[in-house]
């Protein structure tokens, strides 16, 4: 009797602290987003006077209305969706091919390519802007979404490759060998048998790349000059310069910009862990 009493108290303490810590993490993760939302619905005239109140005495949708109807934001938004979506897809395809080769073939160049991928991550991106501009300009790829997609893809391929490789490592080689005996070439076996089995991994990679491309500011700012090819982080920045920092509108734009990224993230986050588990990194 006392024994079970003790263990159940223990259990309660355990789960109590478990939920408490979970709650702490959730609050830490969400509070800044809540603040973003709060600022975006606070009318301009009380933005500073009620700056530290948890919720303003009056709320307004004006900032949202402005962003959606009077600014270039819908255009920036669309550009961002195009750039991030395409980057995510192309990067995942390229990384899947490379990750597959890393996982299945032993070849001389492998070490060199891995080293190349690591070393290029060590150079500050800032310093690549001018040279990249020099290379892309004659090709007509500056000031264009295509150029941006190419650059983002190149930057994200290394990490995505390592990710995809770990997924492929988790799939037995026997499977494509069976398919090759059944009548596939290796590439067909890769496409028809192996790739469908790594779908969670593909989703995880898509998610990582999409969010990375979605928030990229530096290159979007430096490689693109025209409004029509600007992505939304650049648009956000334009609130700072052009509209003399209208925080309410900027935060509203920020909240709006979060929606697709969050939606996408929520959609794939289930696969994120599942996918990474399937291709668990092995010692």
């Amino acid at each position, binding site marked *: 009797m006392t024994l079970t009493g003790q263990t159940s108290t223990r259990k309660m303490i355990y789960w109590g602290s478990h939920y408490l810590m979970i709650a702490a993490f959730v609050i830490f993760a969400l509070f800044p987003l809540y603040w973003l939302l709060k600022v975006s619905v606070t009318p301009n005239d009380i933005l500073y006077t009620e700056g530290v109140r948890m919720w303003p005495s009056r709320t307004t949708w004006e900032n949202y209305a402005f962003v959606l109807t009077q600014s270039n934001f819908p255009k920036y938004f669309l550009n961002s969706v195009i750039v991030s979506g395409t980057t995510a897809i192309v990067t995942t395809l390229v990384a899947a091919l490379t990750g597959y080769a890393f996982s299945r073939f032993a070849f001389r160049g492998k070490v060199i390519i891995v080293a190349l991928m690591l070393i290029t991550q060590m150079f500050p991106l800032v310093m690549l802007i001018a040279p990249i501009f020099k290379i892309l300009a004659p090709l007509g790829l500056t000031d264009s979404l295509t150029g941006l997609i190419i650059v983002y893809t190149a930057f994200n391929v290394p990490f995505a490759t390592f990710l995809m490789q770990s997924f492929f490592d988790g799939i037995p080689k*026997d499977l494509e060998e069976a398919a090759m*005996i059944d009548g596939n070439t290796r590439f067909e076996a890769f496409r028809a048998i192996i790739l469908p*089995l790594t779908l969670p991994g593909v989703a995880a990679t898509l998610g990582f790349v999409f969010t990375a491309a979605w928030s990229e500011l530096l290159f979007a700012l430096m490689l693109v000059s025209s409004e029509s090819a600007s992505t939304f982080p650049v648009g956000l920045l334009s609130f700072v310069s052009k509209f003399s920092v209208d925080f309410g509108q900027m935060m509203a734009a920020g909240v709006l910009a979060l929606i697709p990224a969050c939606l996408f993230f929520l959609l794939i986050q289930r696969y994120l862990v599942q996918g990474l588990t399937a291709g668990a990194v092995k010692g």
Partner: protein
Amino acid sequence: MASIQIANARKSYGAVDVLHGIDLNISDGEFIVLVGPSGCGKSTLLRMIAGLEDITSGDISIAGNVVNDLQPKDRDIAMVFQSYALYPHMSVAENMSYALTLRKTAKEKISDAISGVAEILGLTALLERRPKALSGGQRQRVAMGRAIVRKPQAFLFDEPLSNLDARLREQMRTEIRKLHHRLGATSVYVTHDQIEAMTMADRIVAMHDGIIQQVGSPVEIYDKPANIFVASFIGSPAMNFLKGSYEISDDNGAGVRLSDGALVPVLQAQNAQNNQAVTLGSRPEHISIVSDADNGLPAKVELIEPMGLSTLVHVTLAGKPIKIFTMDRPNYPVDSFIHIAFDMAKAHVFDTSSEQRLPPTTEPHSGHKD
């Protein structure tokens, strides 16, 4: 159906030689079992036949055509993997029809073929299931079915039964043999299990360290092992070995003088010199327990191991452990002495340094030579 020729095939991974010049001719419709300890290169050889591994040098031909440069898909062979390698995202039916679909076989033909094979293997009720929802034995059958539907030129098996429990393994052994009778397809079957080799093979290929040690029918391999490796690997419980020296007696008889001075008479061996260092080999069932001291050597009882059908008596002779197989039900006390006698006609003499068997000058009959 097709014959398979392997001519001086070698395989190395970098500086490591895995297969050292394999020569093997497999006739049309034959069931060949490659047997040997793990790591001896069986799978590598099988995968070279399948086209999954490159051949470092040499030739492999199927149906008379050199296939060295052919992709696996163009070799028209089927393979059953140890892991079964079933496609997890396809149903049983889809797994089995995959190869035919790739070959653009007509739909009706495919479904006919599949229902036929499913019938044979008892898979009819499982056709719509995913591999995940099958037991180990059922998966094994699907893997077999996937190979059979294609009617390939040859079947390759890589330890297909090693993930099954003992009873199921025994049952599948028989079934695979029956299937082979029915289909008559050339088959190459890899296993490390000598019982599988003995029970299933038309011919056994015994391998060790990337070299073929002996090729022959199961009875041949069992009765006339080419060397100590084959003799010790095939047969369970394993053959007994005793080191000694070869002696020719005045009356043209021969014997092996053991380290303790005892003489075991054997048939005269070819090319054996007097006093040559030899190893006497005798299977447990070729040693008998005798009652009188005159005809037997004294041996100390270590352990009596009842095996149901028979009993295994462990003794020491000349300081070495010896196993004796008997159909009696002996109950000697441990540490007591008994007398044992070697069946002279069945005893083997091996040259100790080369480990090769020195066959008797007149080989007694055992099965047929082909």
